[in-house]
């Protein structure tokens, strides 16, 4: 009951910048839809490989030996 009331007044009262909450939420919606569409594509191989390659940044070419990680990415 209380919710309905406040909801109704919310939707007709312009908020910051003279915008109704309805318009604000609509803009937010479209903005996030556009953005999330790219986010959902995940990490392209190009970048995964780039970061993997730069794993040992120019330092001594020591074998990865950092205590207990069992992944053998790329090597045996």
């Amino acid at each position, binding site marked *: 009951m209380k919710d309905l009331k406040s909801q109704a007044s919310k939707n007709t009262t*312009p908020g*910051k*910048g*003279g*915008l*109704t909450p*309805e*318009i*604000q939420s*609509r*803009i*937010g919606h*479209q*903005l*996030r*839809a*556009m*953005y*999330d*569409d*790219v*986010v*959902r*594509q*995940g*990490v*392209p191989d*190009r*970048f*995964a490989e*780039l*970061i993997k390659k*730069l*794993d040992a*940044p120019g330092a001594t070419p020591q074998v990865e030996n*950092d205590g207990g*990680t069992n992944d053998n990415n790329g090597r045996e």
Partner: protein
Amino acid sequence: MPLTESLRDDILAAVPSLRAFAISLSGNADRADDLVQETLLRALANIDSFQPGSNLPAWLFTILRNLFRSDYRKRRREVEDAEGNYAKTLKTQPSQNAHLEFEEFRAALDKLPQDQREALILVGASGFSYEDAASICGCAVGTIKSRVNRARSKLAALLYVDGAEDFGPDETVRAVIGGSGG
């Protein structure tokens, strides 16, 4: 701090949102990926200056934003097939109505001044706090707030006629944007 395994994972985890930010800023998928690549290289080269425990995404976004800024200044924005390029990045083909609405939105976003656009994206899409957005953009929190508000007002004016009062239910908007009811 040194590039530990977990830091590397965190950087990798930030890549999808870095790309979304870059595409939102540049309106061009190919250029956005170049920006992301340069951001990663720069981040990895300067990883020592990253403070452990501080906000990694904010740090990466700052690098990308600064790169975009200097790039932008250098070559201005080429008027390119932003929409076409952007559409290429979409996995699913949206329905015709949704697509139209999407292009309208994209075009309106492109009309915003850059300051306002980036503030709106950081706060409204990337989900940064006003404080983080302010530190990414190198300005005061109040400045970010007013940029976001101005961005919203301008978008509303561009998309929903005169903003506030004229805004009707979804069907009305769809009919206006779509031009026909089917």
